[in-house]
């Protein structure tokens, strides 16, 4: 006998402990089964793209910090890359190495937070792994603070280089971190890898089909979890990424576990890159190109993109030869990754919405820019 039940609509968010910010989902449920899901965003909209059009090219850097605030450095990098392309500025080699070091530190720091929050979404008592990961993230934040005095919104990169050089104690501290980190990664895996409940909650859950991922232009770990080897650092190398040896970890099925696994492996690859970058970095003092105070890039357009921890972060700039961009558009990776959420959770339970959403690693600051 089939029992027929009535569907009902549940609003998850905008204020909900697991929406990682102010995000709303209009979920149609049959009991606990998700029949439909409609993402609704815009509750954190600050009009950053519009604000940018009223500021000079340099002033905009501080706005980019506020996009995905857990990966401010890569936001900085993507933006300055676009401006440098537009204005034809070449960054000295040391500056490029410093940017790579910052980017990879940011990737590790972001992934630690992403995995920690994802596990937290599996149940609040499992705050435990999050706190273990925050232990290492704190060390990274200390390093960032050492470099630019900030722990969240760094505003460190500049058009043509960086705001100032590393202090003398930075590189030894970074080397210590890079040497210690593999043991911590092992510790996380010991804590989590064979946890039966974790596997049952994540393996085979929230599958993103490969074709859909490609067609929807999903990027970053979410794309790579489906088995697609696509990484801007390899596909369209920027800075000095073509000088490093590293692999692109990929998953197989594109489920929640694969996304978690890909991030864990990416941290290992970032450590590899950091090791090489520290070794290869030139000793010269030259890290900034000469850039005028008020930049007037020639009329035209440019698109600069980087592999941010969440995926392809791109800045599209149009210049009318004034001191402010005529138009700025941001290709936010998490906004595009989020478009696949509906397909990923239909047929699963309410609890899986939360974990799948967590596995995408969103930052609402970037979505509602």
């Amino acid at each position, binding site marked *: 006998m089939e029992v027929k039940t009535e569907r009902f609509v549940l609003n998850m968010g905008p204020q909900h402990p697991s929406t990682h910010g102010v995000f709303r989902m209009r979920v149609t449920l049959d009991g606990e089964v998700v029949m439909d899901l409609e993402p609704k965003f815009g509750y954190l909209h600050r009009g950053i793209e519009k604000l940018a059009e009223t500021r000079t090219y340099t002033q905009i850097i501080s706005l980019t910090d506020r996009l995905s605030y857990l990966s401010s450095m890569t936001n900085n990098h993507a933006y300055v890359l676009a401006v440098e392309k537009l204005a034809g500025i070449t960054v000295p080699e040391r500056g490029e190495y410093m940017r790579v070091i910052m980017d990879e530190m940011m990737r590790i720091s972001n992934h630690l937070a992403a995995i920690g929050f994802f596990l937290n979404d599996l149940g609040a*008592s*499992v705050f435990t792994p999050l706190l273990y990961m925050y232990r290492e993230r704190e060390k990274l934040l200390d390093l960032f603070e050492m470099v630019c005095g900030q722990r969240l919104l760094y505003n460190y990169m500049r058009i043509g280089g960086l705001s100032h050089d590393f202090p003398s104690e930075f590189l030894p501290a970074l080397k210590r971190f890079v040497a210690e980190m593999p043991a911590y990664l092992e510790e996380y895996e010991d804590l989590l890898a064979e946890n039966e*409940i974790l596997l049952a909650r994540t393996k085979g859950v929230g599958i993103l089909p490969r074709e859909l991922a490609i067609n929807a232009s999903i990027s970053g770990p979410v794309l790579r979890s489906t088995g697609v080897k696509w990484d801007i650092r390899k596909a369209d190398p920027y800075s000095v990424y073509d000088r490093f040896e590293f692999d692109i970890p990929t998953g197989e099925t594109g489920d929640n576990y694969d996304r978690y696994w890909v991030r864990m492996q990416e941290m290992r690859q970032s450590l590899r890159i950091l090791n090489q970058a520290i070794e290869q970095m030139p000793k010269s003092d030259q890290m900034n190109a000469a850039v005028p105070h008020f930049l007037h890039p020639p009329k035209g357009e440019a698109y600069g993109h980087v592999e941010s921890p969440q995926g392809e972060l791109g800045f599209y700039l149009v210049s009318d030869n004034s001191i402010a961009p005529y138009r700025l558009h941001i290709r936010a990776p998490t906004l595009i990754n989020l478009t696949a959420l509906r397909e990923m959770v239909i047929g699963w339970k309410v609890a899986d919405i939360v974990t799948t959403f967590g596995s995408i690693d969103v930052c609402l600051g970037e979505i509602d820019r």
Partner: protein
Amino acid sequence: MNNLYPFDNYWAHFGVFAVVVLLFVIAGVMAFIYIERRGFGLFQMRMGPNRAGPWGLFQPIADAIKVLLKEDIVPDVADKVVHFLAPVVGFLPVLLIFAVVPFHEGHGLIPDLNVGILYVVAISSVGVVGVFMAGWASNNKYSLIGAMRAMAAMVSYEIPLVLSILGVVAIAGSLSMNGIVQAHDIPLFLLTPLGFLVFLASAMAEINRGPFDLLEADSEIVAGFHVEYSGMKFAMFYLAEYGHALAMSAIAATLFFRGWEGPGGQYIGILWFLVKIVFVFGLMIWLRVAFPRLRIDQLMGFAWKFLFPLALINLFIIAGEMVGFDGDIPWWMLFVNWAVTIVLVLVFSRAYRLGEGRVEVKA
């Protein structure tokens, strides 16, 4: 009743013990909250409460004052009467369970009820009514989901729980809590480890402790059945939850760890009893802090496909032993039972998977 006890008058005994039980539950709950928060701090490399009083000892008192002073908010569209009654119905069974818990030999509100454990099982399942009332009356979808989960989970886990208790009853040959403690010279968790495991898992699900805390599930349904409760009414649910944990720890200590018995137990029996309660609660904290939360279909599957058969097998084994050895189990059966437990748990955990739980949805 032994001579240590001054009240031969029934009403005097009843009055004194009712107060003792109430104080014990409230003090126990406060201690549990403190122990849990400090325990969580220990597991999670942080301090835990350490500001209010020495080592944060006054933290539960500060919490109590806070909830007392908070505004009581009732949703406009709630069913006001049911909304009001739900915390009472939820909390009362917790107090009633302690009527038959023997703190010491022959000492309890009802010192030696001959169907004590049956009473505990019956009373402890009343709590679910309070939870469902709260969820239904709040007129909130999260509450409703939490309430439905509560019904499903608590009713399902009742079955392996009772089956595991039946094993103990079969060994002790008594339904009285006193009788069960006195029945054997060794703690029964050594004799029936499988029974203890099933009991612990089912009890944790029954009292809404992680990883089975789905009716609350703050990461999914915000706080489930009590999302619309604030101030003292919320505190009643909180009290009920920890009171239930206290009760279940007390019952586990009585059934599986010989209650008040221990070296010098005739003088310091209550101390032994408290130590055992804290030990069982410590196990619960450890499990809660280490495991992610299950999903509702996995929770139900775990009860019906994993714990239920194990509980049945355990009962058959115990019953077989009792019949085969005429009620007097030889010491070597200890090793046999442990071996059987290890094999069964390994085999079952290999054979049983928590399951995917996806449903095909037609557009």
